[in-house]
């Protein structure tokens, strides 16, 4: 179980790093799907090995919501956006460096937790937490609304992984609430993004500066 959870969480982190690295929107979306599926697999594995039936159901819902519904919505939002060429001088090198720092920070921050908890999955906890932090970093560095939405979803995935690893799943009502929240947020964002694009022909956040009073 330790090996399986470590491996899956590690793969999840690698995929997250790839999201940071890639610049093209369809590729990032595919990587997000991969990350979601890996986390669903993690939930399923823990469900089987720890004999938690509920987790299997959670994994199934996760696959449907994050592996299928949300990516479809995201693809719909992004369809109007031209495939952005890699802007010269804006490589992801610095961001990747920051990401490395965040992984270290995640280990440092989670040190008291992992030393106090006696779970077979404890080794993967910092990895999931790093995923969440990187999600926030994606929000910070995102150049348009799509980048922010993706960052938020990665952050949410990280929190989900953290919950699975640290507690073997939250109470059903909480899980259901979180899924509904995320879904609603994404739908609202879709409406907002579509509206903003129609009004301003752009969803670039730099142009928000013009609104400053």
């Amino acid at each position, binding site marked *: 179980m330790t090996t399986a959870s470590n491996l899956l969480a590690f793969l999840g982190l690698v995929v997250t790093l790839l999201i940071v690295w890639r610049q093209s929107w369809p590729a990032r979306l595919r990587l997000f799907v991969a990350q979601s599926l890996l986390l669903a697999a993690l939930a399923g594995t823990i469900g089987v090995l720890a004999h938690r039936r509920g987790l299997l159901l959670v994994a199934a819902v996760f696959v449907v919501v994050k592996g299928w519904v949300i990516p479809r919505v995201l693809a719909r939002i992004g369809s109007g956006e031209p495939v952005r060429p890699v802007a010269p001088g804006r490589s992801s090198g610095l961001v990747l460096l920051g990401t490395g720092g965040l992984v270290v*920070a995640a280990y440092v921050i989670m040190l008291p937790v992992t030393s106090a908890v006696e779970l077979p999955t404890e080794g993967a906890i910092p990895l999931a937490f790093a995923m969440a932090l990187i999600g*926030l970093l994606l*929000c910070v560095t995102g150049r348009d609304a799509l980048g922010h939405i993706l960052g938020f979803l990665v952050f949410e995935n990280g929190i989900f992984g953290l919950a699975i690893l640290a507690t073997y799943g939250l109470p059903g009502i909480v899980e259901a609430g979180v899924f509904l929240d995320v879904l609603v947020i994404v739908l609202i964002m879709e409406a907002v993004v579509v509206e903003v694009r129609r009004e301003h022909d752009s969803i670039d*956040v730099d142009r*928000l*500066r013009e609104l*400053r009073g």
Partner: protein
Amino acid sequence: MDRLAYGLAALIGIAATAFGSYGMSGDVGTLRVAWLVPLGGLELTLDPLGGFFLALIGFAAVPASIYAMGSSPGERRDRFAYLVFVLSMCLVPLAANTMTFAITWELMSLASYFLVLHDRESKPSIYAGWVYAVMTHAGLACLLAGMLLLGAWTGSPRFEDWRAAAPALSGTARNAVFVLLGLGFAGKAGVIPLHVWLPLAHPAAPSHVSALMSGVMIKLGVYGLLRVSLDWLGAGPAWWGVAILVAGAASSLIGVLYALVDHDLKRLLAFHSIENIGIILLGVGSAVLYHGAGLPAAALLGLAAALYHTVNHAAFKALLFLGAGAVVHATGTRNMEELGGLIKRMPWTAACFLVGSAAIAALPPLNGFVSEWLTFVALFQNTHLAAVGLNIVFILGIASLALTGGLAMACFVKAFGITFLALPRSDAAARANEAPVPMRLAMLTLAASCVALGLGPTLVIPVLGAVAASVLGQAPPATVGDWLTLRVSGGYASLSTLAIAIALGAALLVPFVALPLVRAARRTRAYETWGCGRIIQTSRMEYTATAFANPFKRVFDFFYRPTKHLDIEFHPESRFFVERIEYENPARSIFHDWLYRPALDLLRVGARAAGALQSGSANLYLAYILAALLLMLVLA
């Protein structure tokens, strides 16, 4: 139907007077509704001091509401705010824990804010409302900080528990609470230099509201100061009393100095409210000092004097504001330079205003004289204290009270003389009509109570003495003289306003009796006033308010720092004839220039520096969140 709210407010006032008088008799009752609001629930307690202020509010609310029925009914919003204002004021002195107090206090402030802002179109009104909102909420912040700290240190939000636990707290803790609560209450009372909202807000509100704001709302600041310095925290160090005494001396003197040079009738009255709060605080400060020094009789006298002046000020200031309101109602202006001659057009209002003016100027036998006399006697008791520093502070208080009395006299000679006597200075003043019956009724009631409070101190003092004694934890005074003469401080001084009134009345009769006796000629001769050789007498030849105030402006030049504007238009033919002269010398406020302006500038610089955080970049804002999260997790 429009006036239903005012009728209801008058009923509330009557009930408050009755209920408060019952509370003053010493019966203590508590009403607790624990579930209604969080943090201790709703809790109302009626004790003698609370009852006194409740009765005071009712006493002023009744005539103010009757007056409002006679004036223009205003918008529905204003009537509702007025009702809430009266009701919340009644609840403030009853509040018995932090939460109840905060709710009632804030309701009172908000309702009065909307009343100040009743004219939503005028710029001065909006500015006044804004300054009032800022000052009252700064005060509320101080009050809440002080109360929450005291609650945390004593372990209870209830005032009842503070009385038991607070005296055991460390000196620093008690001083901190005293400073915070003192600042909050002093701001509401309009103590210098926290007074800036008062001369703006009182003129902006409708007159019946000004009467209540000035007559009783600012008194709730005094109520709070009494609770803090004598009740909740127990006997404090001497500097508490010194601070209150000095604040009182400064407020009384500076308030009257500003009033002297102001020609807006309602703003002049507002400045006089600052002055009278100062006089009340002189009594309170002396009581705090005597209480701390173990002189119970002197403390009782000081506090009773302060309470007496509180009642008196409520009576004559409400009367004067209602009178000023009647003038504004009839002429549409508050500028004294455009008034004059109103005594012929509005005899009732003029008579009532004259009674109020004489009372506020402390002329015997009216009520202002009695309480200022008592304050003087209380201050003179400092000879029992063997501390040179304190004695000097007391002498400062006595000197400022004496100077204040004289200047207030001069100021009301101006206020009454320029407004009501001589010839009208504008068409509006010439066409003024007497106020309608409800307004006159309200003013007459208050004028009668001014006279009654002046003539009957031997009946009033025992009641106030009992309230003061319950605050100080003493037995009420045994005797204060007989029906005719008031004797205080063990025969130190005595006063009989009744005898003075009879003597004055007799003096007025002298000409009627003496002239026939000596067979003097009693024929009335009508003759023109000497007009410097000019033939036609116009209002242009009258003494103006500016001219009246000018000598004072020169004497107190260092304080007013007047600027001069002289504008002369010569006759085109010859420079020896002038067509028009305009002269004004507005005073500049030292508090505005030296305290608030620098403070606001500092705030602006700080805000601009903090504004650098607001770059407008969404990414940066998200980075703040990430940084804050990491910082919190690493530190935790």
